[in-house]
């Protein structure tokens, strides 16, 4: 196999893996946008918040330690135990559901029927509030997130070297794929299949689709909008947690994690704001596109660093030629 082709394939595969993460973040946006028409700017911060909560619980950190110490003059920081990853994930899910309830109860319940721009502004406020709360709760230092740590959440360590060896024997070139990327892809695939099954076949899923389609009609068939909104915020919180874990495991849990929300924007332009498959395909296209573009054109001809802007340029092109995205509902103006 020629060297150049083999490299290209490897870049392609790595692009797919990066795309999975973009897709996960975009998925959270789509869930909330479909059901409530709210463009949730806070989705990235939710991922950060979820990841920080997970690490905090895992390490047995005392929440609001600084605040408590400042008020009571104590000096507590840790409970002195560490929590098993699975338990910590379960607890974080509970926290995210609580967050969903609070967001609905204290913010959006009071903004029902407001214009989209007002709802959007509310999510910007929410993003900064949540960032502050996360900081106050768990502190702002960079933390390492390791869900695998000897607890077997990850695939066997030998998998990537096995792929490396097998491909070397067959093609004469060994592909290197990060273990974490494989896990992320599998988890994302399960998550998406699970979400689609949920939406298609369960009572709550049906109700969710009903709310996404028409609020008034949903009310008339006995669906509580409030419940469904809490449900979608919880689901988005769960998706944020998964994205936060994957991203955090890659580059540590730090505040820049909240910026992945910006990377999800071009994904949404491509996939459409209302389509779950769109978010996935859009994420993969952006992931692959930016890696391949950098490898084939950016690095040799443009002096590199094209990954930073490629996604946005692609999104701009889509906005001009296909504003509803690949899978979004077609925009038809009737006169």
């Amino acid at each position, binding site marked *: 196999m020629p060297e150049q082709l083999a490299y290209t394939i490897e870049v392609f595969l790595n692009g797919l893996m990066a795309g999975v993460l973009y897709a996960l973040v975009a998925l959270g946006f789509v869930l909330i946008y479909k059901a409530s028409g709210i463009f949730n700017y806070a989705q990235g911060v939710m991922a950060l918040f979820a990841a920080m909560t997970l690490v905090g619980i895992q390490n047995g950190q005392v929440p609001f330690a600084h605040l408590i110490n400042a008020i009571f003059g104590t000096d507590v920081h840790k409970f002195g135990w560490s929590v098993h990853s699975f338990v910590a994930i379960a607890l974080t899910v509970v926290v995210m559901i609580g967050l969903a309830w609070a967001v609905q109860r204290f913010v959006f319940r009071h903004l029902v029927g407001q214009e989209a721009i007002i709802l959007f502004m509310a999510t910007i406020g929410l993003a900064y509030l949540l960032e502050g709360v996360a900081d106050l709760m768990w502190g702002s230092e960079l933390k390492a997130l390791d869900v695998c740590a000897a607890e077997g959440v990850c695939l066997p360590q030998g998998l990537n070297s096995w792929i490396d060896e097998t491909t070397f024997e067959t093609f004469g070139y060994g592909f290197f794929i990060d273990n974490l990327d494989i896990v992320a892809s599998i988890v994302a695939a399960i998550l998406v299949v699970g979400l689609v099954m949920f939406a298609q076949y369960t009572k709550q899923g049906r109700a969710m689709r009903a709310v996404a*389609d028409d609020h008034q009609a949903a*009310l008339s068939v006995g669906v509580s909008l409030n419940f469904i909104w809490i449900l979608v915020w919880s689901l988005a919180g769960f998706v944020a947690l998964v994205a936060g874990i994957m991203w955090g495991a890659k580059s540590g849990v730090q505040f820049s994690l909240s910026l992945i929300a910006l990377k999800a924007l071009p994904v949404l332009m491509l996939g459409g704001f209302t389509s779950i498959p769109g978010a996935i395909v859009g994420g993969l296209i952006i992931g692959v596109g930016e890696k391949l573009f950098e490898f084939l054109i950016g690095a040799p001809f443009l002096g590199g660093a094209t990954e930073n802007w490629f996604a946005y340029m692609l999104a701009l092109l889509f906005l001009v030629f296909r504003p509803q995205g690949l899978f979004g509902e077609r925009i038809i103006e009737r006169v």
Partner: protein
Amino acid sequence: MHDTGGIENNRRYEGNVCVKDQVDSYVTEDGRTIGPVVMEMKNITLRFGGVEAIKDISFDIREGEIRAIIGPNGAGKSSMLNVISGFYVPQEGEVWYKGARRPPMKPFQVAQQGIARTFQNIALFEGMSVLDNVMTGRLTHMKTGIFSQTLWKGRAEREEIENREVAEKIIDFLEIQAIRKTPVSRLPYGLKKRVELARALAAEPLLLLLDEPMAGMNVEEKEDMSRFILDVNDEFGTTIALIEHDMGVVMDLSDRVVVMDYGKKIGDGTPHEVRNNQEVIDAYLGVSHD
């Protein structure tokens, strides 16, 4: 001629509470059996800011009857339907349902109590197929939640099959089998109205509220719709309350009629009585109010 006015007088009250109808049911001229009162509106007043949309209106709906609310445009008919279905909460008055006073409720709670409705300007799930739309009407009958659905797969499947059967039966009944898989957004207006009726019926409601079921239809479609309304009432015994401003259609269809004008009740009785009511004639022919 049957005297419906008598029903009012046969009721026994203790204070403000109707204890029991002495006449629980009666048979109409054309042999239809009308049951006891299922819903009663008592002195309902609804205001929007300074505007009184409904002024101190009382009437009842009996089991098994087709009850019409008619009146010229802006008379407050739709507002009244919205009060019954919980979309509006009246400032004054009481709503009695199945013999008990109904506390202020959200529309979805009202729906869960067995009151289904359609809308004047059609509220369907445009992105779903006809069958999926009708299936959403079954939501109030779906018991199994997320967790039991994953744990007890068999029970969830059985429930799904049962709900599907009801939906298919109603689709057959309303003669929309041919379009069951069609996305609703592609249907013409008349068929959409019928799908909306199907969705409401799928809930197997005790009380069905129809908001101008024949608005914007041609003569043929109106005849079809009238036939379906009568058939539904006949076949499933569903109590129906409908709003219409086309007098002709209503008179043929309904057992009893409430007439509203400028938010006030100006007539209540059989179609025959209402037709001969001077106030009603004035309202429809446009005698100046002074």
